[in-house]
C-alpha cells in the first residue's frame, strides 16, 4: 500500500537520528561527575575500596567508555535496558510500571488540545476580526503565556483546596480499594487537572494555527471554484476548507509529541503522578544514569511511534503525499 510505504520510508529516516541520540547521550553522560556506584555509595554512607571495586565490576563500569557503549547498544538491540541500582530492579521493569500513566496523560491531553484547537480555531476564523474572534484569540494568547506548572498549582488551589471538587494529586486513591468501573472513575477524576494543565498550552497553539490556516485556505482558488459551482458557505467550510486547513496541524502534532513528553515531566511532578516524566526527574536527582538512559531510549521510541502514526494519518488525508514522499 502506498500509504504505508510513505510512512515506513519516513520511519527509516529516524533510525540514524535514534542512533545519534543514543550515542550522544551516552557520551554526554561520560562527563557526569560521579557514576551510579558513587550515587549508591552516597546513599549507603560510603564503603571500603574492595566493595567499590566489586560494585564497579558488577555494573560493568570497569571497562573503557567505548567498550561500554558497544555493550550498551548491543543490549539495547535486545531491548535490555540494564539494571537500576537505585530501584534495585531492571530498568525496563521500572519504566513499564511508570509508562501507562504518562501514556494516559499524553493521549488525553493531545485529544483535548486537538479537539479544542480545531473547534475554537474554526469559530474564530469564521468570525474573523469580530468579537468572538477577539475573545478566542485573547484567551488563546493567555493560555500560551501561562507556565503549565503554575496553572496546575492554581487549579489545585481552586478546585482541590477551595472547592474540594477534585483530588489534588496522585494517580488514584490507594487506600480506597476501588475496583473495576469505580477505579476508572477515580483515575479519571485524578487526571482532570493534569490533563487540563498539560493540554492548554497546546490547545492555544493549535487554535492559532487552525485560525490562520482556515483563513489562508479560504482565499485559495478552489474555494472560489466551489462558490462558482453554487456551493453554500457551510458546505464550503466543512467539505473544502476544513480538511485542507487540518494538514498543517497534523504536521505539528508529530513535532509536539516530544514537547508534550517533556511537559509531562513538570506536570507529573506537580501532581505527584507516578509517570515517566517524574521518573526522569528522580533519576536526575539521584544520578541513576542507567534509568536515565533507559528513559531517553523509550521516550525517543515513543516519539518515533507517534510520528509514524501521524505520517499515516497525513498520507490518509492528503492524496498528494502518497506517491511523492516528502
Amino acid at each position, binding site marked *: 500500500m502506498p500509504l504505508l510505504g510513505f510512512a515506513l520510508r519516513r520511519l527509516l529516516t529516524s533510525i540514524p537520528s535514534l542512533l545519534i541520540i543514543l550515542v550522544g547521550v551516552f557520551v554526554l553522560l561520560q562527563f557526569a561527575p560521579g557514576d551510579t556506584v558513587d550515587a549508591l555509595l552516597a546513599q549507603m554512607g560510603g564503603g571500603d575500596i574492595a566493595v567499590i571495586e566489586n560494585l564497579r565490576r558488577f555494573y560493568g563500569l570497569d571497562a573503557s567508555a567505548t567498550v561500554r557503549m558497544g555493550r550498551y547498544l548491543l543490549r539495547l538491540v535486545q531491548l535490555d535496558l540494564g539494571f537500576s541500582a537505585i530501584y534495585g530492579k531492571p530498568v525496563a521493569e521500572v519504566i513499564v510500571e511508570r509508562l501507562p500513566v504518562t501514556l494516559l496523560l499524553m493521549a488525553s491531553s493531545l485529544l483535548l488540545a486537538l479537539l479544542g484547537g480545531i473547534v475554537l480555531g474554526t469559530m474564530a476564523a469564521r468570525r474573523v476580526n469580530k468579537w468572538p474572534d477577539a475573545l478566542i484569540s485573547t484567551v488563546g494568547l493567555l493560555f500560551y503565556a501561562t507556565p503549565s506548572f503554575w496553572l496546575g498549582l492554581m487549579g489545585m488551589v481552586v478546585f482541590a483546596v477551595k472547592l474540594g471538587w477534585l483530588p489534588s494529586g496522585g494517580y488514584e486513591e490507594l487506600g480506597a480499594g476501588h475496583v473495576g468501573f469505580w477505579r476508572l472513575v477515580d483515575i479519571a477524576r485524578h487526571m482532570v487537572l493534569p490533563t487540563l494543565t498539560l493540554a492548554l498550552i497546546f490547545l492555544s497553539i493549535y487554535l492559532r494555527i487552525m485560525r490562520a490556516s482556515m483563513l489562508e485556505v479560504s482565499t485559495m482558488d478552489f474555494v472560489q471554484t466551489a462558490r462558482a459551482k453554487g456551493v453554500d458557505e457551510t458546505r464550503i467550510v466543512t467539505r473544502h476548507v476544513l*480538511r485542507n486547513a487540518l494538514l498543517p496541524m497534523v504536521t505539528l502534532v508529530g513535532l509536539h509529541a516530544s514537547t508534550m513528553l517533556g511537559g509531562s515531566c513538570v506536570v507529573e511532578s506537580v501532581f505527584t503522578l507516578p509517570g515517566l516524566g517524574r521518573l526522569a526527574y528522580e533519576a536526575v536527582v539521584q544520578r541513576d544514569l542507567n534509568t536515565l538512559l533507559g528513559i531517553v531510549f523509550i521516550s525517543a521510541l515513543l516519539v518515533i511511534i507517534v510520528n509514524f502514526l501521524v505520517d499515516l494519518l497525513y498520507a490518509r488525508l492528503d492524496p498528494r503525499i502518497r506517491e511523492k514522499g516528502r
Partner: protein
Amino acid sequence: MTPRLSIDDLSIAMPEGADRALALDGVSLSIGSDEIVCLVGESGSGKSMTARAILRLLPPVVRLTGGRIILDGKQDLLRLPEAGMRAVRGARIGMIFQEPMSALNPLHSIGAQIGEAFRVHTELGRREIEARVQALLAEVLIPDPLSAVKAYPHELSGGQRQRAMIAMALAMEPGLLIADEPTTALDVTTQAQILKLIRELQKRKGTGVLFITHDFGVVAEIADRVAVMQGGKIVEQGAAEDILNRPQHPYTRRLIAAIPPLHPAPSRLPERSAQLQVTGLTKTYGGKGPFRKHGRVIHALKDVSFDLHRGVTLGIVGESGSGKSTLARCLVRLLEADSGQVRLDGIDLSALSAKQWQRESRRIQMVFQDPFGSLNPRRRAGEIVAQGSIVRGEPRKQVQDRVRRLFDLVGLDPDATLRFPHEFSGGQRQRIGLARALALEPEILIADEPVSALDVSVQAQVLDLLADLRERLGLSLVFITHDLRVAAKVADDILVMQNGEIVESGPASQILLHPKHPYTQALIASVPGRHWTPPDAGTADSAA
C-alpha cells in the same frame, strides 16, 4: 432575440488608495446565446473583475456603485438575494478559471468535484450522478474517463485538469459559460486542443460564452465578437473580423501592432563562425541521495549538441518540460551537466575550476524570465547592476559611472539607480536585468523567456531594445521562448526541443515555413490565430 446576458453601465469602485478610483467604469456588454464574446485587455484592465461581478464573486474590498446585469432578459443578478444567486452559480452560469491546478481542490477526486454540482443543484442519487460524471468526462475527451473519475488533480496533466474544469462548469448545462484566461497556463499544443473543445461544445449546446483573454491570437482563433478593455472601460467592441483587421480605437491599434507576425525576419549575416559549441550535453534529475532511491529519474537533457555563431540570435523553442530552461542553466553552469562539453572559442567551460569559471563567466551572461523574482527586493537597482563588477575588484567610482551609462543605454533614468526594484514596473525591471547582464560586457547573452511575463505592448518594446543592443554591442544571443511569434521576430536560427532532445534545427525561415519534424509541424499548427496576419498599422510606431 433577448441576449443571454446583458451588462448595463456596470461600475465598481476600488478601495481607497488604489491606482485608480473605478475598477470598472460604465461597462456595457451583451452576450447572445450561441456566440463567443472575447473580452480582451492587458493586465489590470478590469476584464477578470467583470467576470467575477457577473457571478458576484467580487473581493470584499471593492464596492459595486451602479449598473445592472440581466440574465435571460428577466433577472437582475445584482439585486438577487444570496440564496437566489447560489441557484444561478454553477446551474445557469458556469465558470472556468485560469490555473486548473489551484482551481481544483487537491484533496478531492475529480469525480467528487464534478459530482458536487449535481449534489448541490439536484436531487439525483449517487448512481445517477456517477453515470453523469462519467458521461461528462467522456464528452470533454479525457482519455480513460473511468479512471479519471477516481483520480486526484495532481495525477492529471494540465490539459486534462482543464478538461475536468470544463466538464465541471458544463455539468448543469448552463446557458452561459464564463472562461477566464482558460488556456493561459497551458502549453500551445494543449491550448489549441482546449480551444477546439470549447468551440465544439459551445456549438453543440448553443451556449453563450464570455471568453476572457490577453492574447489576440486566441481571439482570432475563437471569437465571434470582441470587446477591448483598457483601464476599466470598454474602448471598442464589434464583430471579431472588424476589430482584428480594421481596429478603430488607437489603443486597440497599438495592441494589435505590438503582436509579432509569424513570418520569419529577413536573414542577416552571410558569413558565419562558430563561437559557442555545445556537444553531447546530458542532464538527469532525481535518483540521487541515500534516502531518495525511490525517486523517478527525469532526463532533462539528452545528448544535446549545437553551435552558436558569432553575432547570431539562436531561438530555442519548446513547451514546458522540453528542457530549454535546463539547457540555458547548463550553459552558464548554474546547473552542472552530467556529461558533455560547452566550448567558448575553443575553451571547454565545463572543465574549468569554480574559480576559473567565476572569471570566465563574464563572457556569458543571462537575462531571466521573472521581472519580480530576478531582482533582489532588498537591494537598490544600481547595486544590483554594479554587483558583478565590484566583486571583480573594479573601483567603485568607475563602476558607478558605468551603471549610470548602462541605465541610459537600456532606456532607464540614470537617476533611478537608488530606487528599489518594487518601485519599477515589470518592463522596467526587465531593463534592469538586462543592464545587470550587460554590466560585465559579455560576448554572449542568454535570455530565458525574457518577455513572457510582460504585456504585449511592453513585450514589443523590450524585444526592440534587445535587437538594438545586439547590433550595437555585437552580441550573440541565445533566446529561449515558448512563443513561436516571438521566436519568428528575433531569431536567425531556431532550435526546437521536445523532452530534452533537439528534434529539429536550422535557419528560422526554414523551420517556420517548411518544418520537417512532425512535432515542429504540430507546434506551428497550434499557434493561435496563425491564419490571421495583424494589419500593418502605420500609426502604431509612436507607441514606444
